[in-house]
């Protein structure tokens, strides 16, 4: 007589189910195809929603004519300079606030009281102070980047395991070396979380500032074509912005991977 078998199977197999790579493109491609179909069936007027194919062809024409280049370069300049200044100060001040109890007591309330202000509201003030040129736009981006970076750096420093600081001191580290060799690398993961958050903020501020006060730049271009009701060219601007955001994120991810290989 054979005994009856009750097989035990892995009941949590769904947790490590593998999905093929093409799956991540499905949603995107599907959306674009649907959009194209809607447009080609003339369900909506091209004034309100131009077809993806029309956006791409117009976009190419604008690249060839140099219009994209003329607007992209000033935008890139503003965002790169603003982001660099804002994040550099953010990391520096964050380290100081996290490391020194005095700086923490004095500086943290200041940071937290300015942080909730929507930065774009300060643009008129900056224009008054710094003029309508590049400086006011770069400053507003730097300011917008500064806050998420400073707050993340600060909590990164606070989260460094005290035993590592003890170990460093035991092996002869000076306070400066403790910051440089333990606290800075220890808070890098949190700093990068802040940098990624700030990337989105900086793009938002770039576009807003350019819409309010600029002759050139992608933001100004989008607004300009919106006013003229040339929706296709407006959408080209939006496409450029989304590509800009995507590239920004990818670059940050690459830098993070290079700087934090031990994670």
């Amino acid at each position, binding site marked *: 007589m054979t005994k009856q078998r009750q097989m035990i199977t892995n009941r949590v197999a769904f947790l490590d189910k593998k999905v093929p790579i093409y799956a991540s493109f499905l949603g995107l491609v599907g959306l674009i195809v649907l959009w194209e179909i809607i447009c080609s069936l003339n369900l909506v007027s091209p004034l309100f929603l131009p077809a993806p194919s029309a956006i791409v062809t117009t976009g190419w024409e604008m690249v060839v004519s140099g219009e994209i280049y003329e607007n992209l370069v000033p935008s890139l300049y503003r965002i790169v300079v603003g982001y660099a200044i804002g994040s550099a100060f953010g990391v520096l001040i964050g380290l100081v606030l996290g490391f020194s109890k005095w700086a923490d007591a004095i500086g943290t309330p200041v940071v937290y009281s300015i942080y909730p202000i929507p930065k774009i509201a300060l643009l008129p003030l900056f224009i008054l102070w710094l003029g309508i040129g590049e400086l006011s736009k770069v400053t507003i981006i730097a300011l917008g980047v500064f806050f998420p970076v400073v707050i993340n750096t600060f909590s990164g420093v606070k989260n460094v395991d005290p*035993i590592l600081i*003890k*170990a*460093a001191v*035991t*092996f002869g580290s*000076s306070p400066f*070396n403790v910051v440089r060799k333990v606290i800075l690398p220890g808070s890098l993961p949190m700093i990068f979380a802040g940098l990624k958050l700030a990337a989105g903020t900086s793009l938002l501020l770039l576009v807003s500032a350019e819409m309010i006060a600029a002759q050139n730049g992608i933001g100004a271009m989008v607004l300009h074509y919106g006013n003229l009701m040339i929706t296709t060219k407006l959408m080209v601007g939006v496409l450029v912005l989304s590509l800009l955001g995507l590239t920004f994120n990818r670059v940050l991810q690459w830098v993070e991977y290079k700087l*934090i290989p*031990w994670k």
Partner: protein
Amino acid sequence: MKVVIEDVRKTFGNKKKGEVLALDNINFSIEEKEFVVLVGPSGCGKSTLLNIVGGLLSPTEGSVYFEGLLNKKPNLAIVFQEIALFPWRTVYENVIYGLEEQKVSKQEQKEKADFYIDMVGLTGFKDAYPKQLSGGMKQRVGIARALAVEPDLLLMDEPFSALDAQTRTLMQEELLTIWNRTQLSTLYVTHNIQEAVYLADRVIVLSRHPGQIKEIIKIDLPKMGRDTEQHRAKYEQYADDIWQLIRQDAEDALKE
């Protein structure tokens, strides 16, 4: 050279909220090339004492000093219970940490690091990050990092308590072999009595509430081979004596 711990007393908390006396009337010394083990029940303040000796905590009263160390600052190294390797540094980079801070030349750093990494048996793992290592291997790196600075006093705070029982036994044997090659003055903290008798030249038994020295026991056995048949009886006798000293305190600790 010797290390003197003189009249050390440590209280926690403050007068308003009530003070807790953690350590009281601690007097002993660690001779050159001596392996001293602090043993006691949980809550006896043995880790507190090690932190005071290691300069990571100030005593409320009393002092810790090196005697007969000519014209140099004492050089300490700690092997932590939590291991405390820098996760962003590879095995090699962790081991040279103390040497870097001593401003030792790159060439010498490399020689010493290679020597001690080899001693703890991790030659093939120089470029691995701590995350990639097992618990036992991590603590070997911790030991190599401490040995590399060739300290005047080596402090070990329950270094093997996070390891499983099998790894622990092997690491104890290995530590003894390494210690015999380096002969560093060592202060070792543990709650494991067998471990204490296995490693120590002298065992200092602490009581709790407050942490005081109950007895100092000299282990009169050869350093190597204490667990062999020849010495088994005496070894067990020492362990049992210490257990009798600690037992009451350990039972009290359990009830809290």
